[in-house]
């Protein structure tokens, strides 16, 4: 068995299994652990508070609309996340791989120019957001090593993916796949879990604020 066959076979299954099992475990823990009921009489609707926060946080706070920093974070955040998800789900090599290994996706892959453009948006967003963790004193203070590892690993995975774009080298394909597998194993134990937990964290914060009659 070649290294590439190992990466595409047993190691892929192992890393994907770790990803699914532990990500599901963390979500189940978050959803079913529960917390003590609040005893104070509610001053507002927790449901509306949650809804408002989940949806409202897609835009910069109204009071920060005139602030360039808020716009920068918003635009870079959208650029990175949308670019990454387009790459992940619509890039031709990924569509082919997902169809072969996981599920028959019902959509066609995007053309090559779409791939390139999405990658450029994703890289530009990721680089600026990651650098902000180093040069913004406040964000630097609240950044943990995990945040840097998560950003660095995501960057390396994306970079090796783009380096393998020519599809001429089994080594580059193997390198990219190996790093994807490492990323999948790291994912459930890191801040990368925000991919799934963001509606819950926003919803919880919003519900608490809504119950108190305030806004999150």
């Amino acid at each position, binding site marked *: 068995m070649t290294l590439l066959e190992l990466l595409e076979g047993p190691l892929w299954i192992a890393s994907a299994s770790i990803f699914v099992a532990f990500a599901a475990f963390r979500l189940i823990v978050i959803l079913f652990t529960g917390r003590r009921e609040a005893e104070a009489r509610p001053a507002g609707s927790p449901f509306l508070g949650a809804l408002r926060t989940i949806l409202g946080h897609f835009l910069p706070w109204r009071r920060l609309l005139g602030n360039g*920093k808020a716009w920068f974070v918003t635009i870079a955040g959208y650029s990175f996340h949308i670019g990454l998800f387009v790459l992940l789900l619509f890039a031709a090599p990924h569509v082919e791989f997902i169809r072969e290994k996981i599920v028959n996706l019902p959509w066609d892959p995007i053309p090559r120019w779409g791939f*390139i453009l999405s990658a450029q948006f994703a890289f530009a967003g990721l680089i600026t957001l990651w650098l902000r963790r180093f040069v913004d*004193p406040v964000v630097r203070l609240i950044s943990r090593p995990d945040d840097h590892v998560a950003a660095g690993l995501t960057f390396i995975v994306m970079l090796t993916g783009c*380096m393998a774009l020519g599809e001429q080298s089994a080594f580059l394909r193997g390198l990219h796949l190996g790093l994807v597998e490492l990323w999948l194993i790291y994912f459930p134990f890191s801040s990368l879990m925000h991919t799934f937990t963001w509606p819950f964290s926003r919803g919880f914060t919003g519900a608490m604020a809504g119950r108190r009659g305030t806004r999150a």
Partner: protein
Amino acid sequence: MATNKGHSAVRLLWSLLIPAFFLMAMPALTGVGGLRAQESGAAQADPGPPNTLGKRSDAEIWHDLRLGAGGIANPPTGSPEAGSVINSEGWEWAKLRNPEKSPIVHYGAWGLLAILGLLVLFYLIRGPVGHGEDSGRRILRFRLSQRIVHWSVAFVFILMGLTGLSILFGRPFILPLIGKEAHSILLTAAMQAHNLFGPIFALFLLGLFVHFLRGNFPSLVDIKWLLKGGGFFGGHAPAGRYNLGEKAWFWTAVIAGGALSVTGFIMLFPDDLATRNTIHLSELIHAIAALVMIGFSLGHIYLGTIGTRGTLKGMVDGYVDENWARAHHDRWLEEELEKAESGDQARETAEEGA
């Protein structure tokens, strides 16, 4: 009988005229083939030297083609290269671009090594430039957006530089070390990354230009700074927000970076944006601009890190010590302190008025 004789004569006439027509029309109809047909006609009349296909040699045919003969529609009509079968200027480009003999590779490698050597020598002789003790008072030098833009350009520039140098110097320097297979993988990867990050570099460079333009125009104090040797060899060299060296780096980065971006786009879209000559020229400009920018950046990196104490902190945290500012950018410090003082006075006046 007379009619039959007439028909025979007409048939004979046509049977001679039709081949003659095709023989005459052949050169006009077939381009290169026409040249061959002419030759073979000539060859029948004059067989030429032994063991050749005609009187004219292949070299002459290619020479004619090189000068625009032939009329072959390849590249197709309408394209910038229509009717051009051979591009003679390509030879000159090939000589300049030949990995083993290229003067760009040769002088580029020596130039970069010389700069590195000079920096090491300067560090060993002069050591890091200091500013005495820290005062404990800090002053904002770079805003958050300036720091993010600066490091974004730096990050992508280093990535582009490493991949670009692998492409430029790969064959003469890296291939002998790692072998053909590994080198081809490295080059494929480097080229894909280089092409993908190019437009991102252009975008960030535009951001850099907008964020750092203010303060980078020439001024009289630059002459004094230059006459004092930038303060690198002792004494104090006055400077505003940016000194002459920093201004030179800014404009080099903008001009060389702009040239890299434009020529890079031409090479990314060769069919839509350029003729072959433009592509060749773009490649040469791209390589030269890259070497100039990388060479200058080595000096910038040295002075921004180990070369001048306290400078890196300014680009990470945004703040510098007042004594650092007094030593390296005294005119700028004076302006900032005056602004702060007038702001305080205005605040005090407003408070008194209230």
